């Protein structure tokens, strides 16, 4: 099966080459048969990548330890669930997985648009094939997952080796979320290839109209949704598994996943300026290009370890390939832009500082500044070594100092932006839309301050969260009231109807509401507490309102590891609340250990209990307990964001409007009934 997989990959490479070179000729000659055959070669590439991926999974499931990748990342006792995840647990498999996910996207695009956008699709096909060629080069010639295990034998020849069992999967990855987190994040990374291909193709083809913008926006939303889920699942995994009580550490790999998310978010907002007012065309095209470049950079940072390995850890040779690929993409984008920049001329200018356009402009500006800050902080060791010869890194204080004010400004714009009018907003409109939400937000601050919200940023965050939530609620209320007055339906039915009539606008509001919840959760971080104590059986420790009683310890042998558990009873006001079982796992095959945190999570706070090992002096077990307020809101907010994005992706339901004047007696003076003018509730798009 390893030969089968290798062969499928080589064939995929050949098909991608044909799709690329043939595609270029097809663009030049416009020969229908050539266009069709290159499209089909693109589809065949995808099919062959699926076969290669399936054959690697087959090798995992059949415990074929003659293949180096399988032997390194699996063992016989590994459950089937993790054998699926073992595919992306190492370098070679991850790169194949990149190709696999990209193939799903590309096949969807090639099938969905096979009879549409005839002028654009040959360009899109060539660009997508170009990206596939790069990853298939890595899969075939640089980091093949199908290499056999071999040792040098007599006369310098290699002897194949088949081991009876493998090394097993790294313990840190043996957690359910590790099965869904990488596919989500990688779906985000790979998904941004599609908007990139459409944007570059439209530029190269000088594709008329704004159709490509709609296509690009839709695919960006899909990738953005996956990227959001991937980032939040990664944060949750770090929180629940690593045992350090936090969810975000500004680690280079985390930062790498945030970068395309920031520029993707900026694009999803600024694209509206192009749709509505024909502005920011150059900016939008470069945001899409940058997002894709950052996806490749993110994969490069993750896979090459160039940052975390600056000093201590060995670097991977794969980095050079990524740097080369980044250079080629940048060059292609630059040339395409310089040759066709007149195609991107702006049709309008900014009219007022208090307008929808300017809110988008500031939104984009600070998202981009955040992106630059995170990128420069992440790459600081590399740049400082180049510039000064000294290797300097920056840590969490740098990232937090810049990004907390940026986050709060964005939160403010989330509330303000959607309610500002295009071109110019009147003072009356400002008062009507913002007086109540502002009052409610400030009132929340006045109430929260004496309750202990004394940290400046947290207090501002809370006020803004309430303000934004109030603006969104008012928007739903106003729209639903209009629907209700016409259809005489319940509030819930009217709200759903309203949302389905303009999914983009109201889906966007739901996403904003989700972000408010995420920010509520982030505000809680300022009030985190922790305590550590050596425990004997029967002894207790206090943290916040909770009392932790160590009832006993046990050791539970499992299939792949042994779990040393603490059995901890949680009491509140001397009443039993629940049992927690924090544990330390000792993995049998590789002698590594892992922590399983026990969490009692409520909307108010998380009680987070870690079995921190045994005291070196007394041999007694040690509990490290954290009280982290409001963390649950982050995960809940993430779900709301994803839900909102899915709503925004739905097509609008056509509004069936009943004209109230229809029953009135006809009159010669009566104007001819016209379709209702769009009201605030029925405006098209997320405007």
């Amino acid at each position: 099966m390893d030969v089968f997989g290798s062969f499928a990959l080589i064939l995929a490479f050949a098909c991608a080459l044909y799709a690329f070179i043939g595609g270029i000729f097809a663009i030049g000659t416009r020969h229908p048969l050539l266009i069709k055959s290159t499209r089909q070669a693109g589809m065949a590439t995808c099919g062959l990548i699926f076969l290669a991926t399936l054959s690697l999974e087959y090798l995992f499931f059949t415990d074929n330890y003659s293949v180096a990748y399988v032997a390194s990342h699996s063992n016989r006792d590994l459950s089937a669930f993790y054998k699926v995840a073992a595919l992306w647990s190492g370098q070679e498999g991850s790169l194949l997985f990149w190709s696999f996910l990209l193939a799903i996207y590309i096949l969807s695009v090639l099938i969905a648009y096979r009879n549409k956008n005839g002028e654009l699709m040959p360009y899109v096909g060539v660009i997508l094939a170009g990206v596939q060629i790069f990853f298939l080069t890595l899969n075939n010639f640089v980091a093949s997952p199908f290499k056999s295990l071999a040792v040098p034998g007599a006369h310098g020849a290699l002897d194949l080796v088949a081991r009876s069992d493998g090394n097993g999967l790294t313990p840190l990855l043996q957690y359910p979320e590790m099965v869904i987190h990488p596919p989500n994040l990688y779906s985000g990374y790979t998904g941004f290839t599609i908007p990139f291909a459409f944007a570059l193709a439209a530029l190269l083809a000088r594709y008329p109209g704004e159709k490509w913008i709609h296509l690009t926006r839709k695919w960006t939303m899909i990738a953005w949704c996956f990227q959001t889920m991937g980032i939040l699942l990664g944060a949750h995994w770090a929180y629940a598994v690593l045992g350090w009580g936090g969810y975000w550490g500004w680690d280079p790999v985390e930062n790498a996943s945030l970068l395309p998310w920031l520029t993707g978010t900026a694009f999803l907002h600024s694209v509206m300026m192009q749709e509505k007012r024909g502005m920011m065309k150059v900016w939008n095209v470069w945001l899409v290009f940058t997002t894709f470049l950052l996806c490749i950079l993110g994969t490069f940072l993750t896979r090459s370890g160039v940052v975390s390995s600056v000093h201590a850890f060995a670097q991977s040779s794969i980095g050079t390939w990524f740097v080369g690929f980044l250079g080629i993409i940048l060059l292609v984008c630059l040339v395409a832009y310089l040759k066709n920049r007149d195609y991107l001329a702006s049709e309008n200018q900014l009219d007022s500082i208090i307008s929808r356009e300017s809110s988008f402009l500031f939104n984009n500006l600070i998202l981009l500044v955040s992106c630059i800050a995170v990128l420069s902080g992440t790459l600081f060791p590399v740049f400082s070594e180049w510039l000064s010869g000294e290797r300097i890194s920056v840590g969490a204080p740098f990232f937090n100092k810049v990004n907390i004010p940026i986050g709060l400004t964005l939160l403010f714009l989330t509330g303000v932006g959607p309610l500002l009018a295009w071109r110019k907003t009147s003072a009356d409109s400002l008062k009507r839309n913002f007086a109540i939400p502002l009052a409610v937000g400030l009132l929340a601050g006045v109430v929260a301050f004496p309750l202990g919200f004394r940290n400046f940023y947290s207090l501002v965050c809370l006020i803004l969260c309430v303000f934004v939530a109030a603006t969104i609620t008012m928007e739903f209320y106003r729209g639903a009231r209009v629907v209700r007055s016409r259809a005489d339906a319940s509030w819930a039915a009217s709200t759903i109807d309203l949302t389905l009539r303009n999914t983009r606008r109201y889906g966007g509001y739901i996403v904003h509401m989700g972000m408010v919840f995420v920010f509520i959760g982030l505000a809680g971080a300022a009030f985190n507490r922790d305590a550590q104590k050596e425990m004997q059986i029967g002894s207790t420790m206090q943290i916040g309102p909770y009392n932790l009683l160590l009832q006993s310890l046990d050791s539970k042998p499992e299939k792949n590891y042994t779990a040393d558990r603490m059995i901890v009873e949680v009491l509140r006001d001397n009443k039993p609340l629940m049992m927690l079982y924090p544990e330390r796992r000792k993995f049998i095959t590789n002698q590594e250990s892992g922590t399983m945190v026990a969490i009692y999570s409520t909307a108010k706070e998380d009680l987070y209990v870690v079995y921190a090992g045994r005291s070196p002096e007394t041999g007694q077990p040690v509990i490290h307990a954290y009280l982290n307020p409001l963390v649950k809101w982050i995960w809940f907010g993430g779900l709301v964001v994803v839900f909102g994005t899915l709503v925004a992706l739905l097509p609008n339901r056509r509004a069936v409007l009943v004209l109230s004047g229809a029953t009135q007696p006809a009159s010669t003076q009566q104007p001819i009934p016209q379709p209702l003018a769009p009201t605030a509730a029925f405006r098209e798009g997320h405007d």
Partner: protein
Amino acid sequence: MIESRLRNTRPIGDCVLGKQAKFGVGIGVILASLAFLAWLGYGESKTYYHTIVELQTLDTAARSHRIRVGGSVEPGSIRKLAGRVDFVLQGEGKSLPVSYVGNDPLPDTFIDNSQALVEGHATPEGHFVAERVQAKCASKYEAAPGGASGAAASSTQRSM
């Protein structure tokens, strides 16, 4: 296209200039504030990378910086004591005695022969006091794909 160009060629009067100036000032204030904050954050958290060999040749001023050193953990050198964990880092044939004094538990991957990055301060006596330890297993380790933060190198310090 021609129409759009015509619209773009309208004379830039005082009004437009006034608006542009307002945007310019707004953008300038935002960028200057964020740059100032970034500079503060940089001063607070900058850490210098050095090898174990370089550390022994640093002058007093350089020793006062926050420093990050990498190496492999000498087998059998990890000693858990009250309030600290002592161990020895090895690299380029030299050894560096380290005391970890941070509050957070050491990462699970911190074991004999693991590769470790320690962050903290060097003492004049040639000792290193670490407030943060990152470690990854020497035998076989690869960064998890995507945003798996801790997988790149599990560490002790919390941020959020």
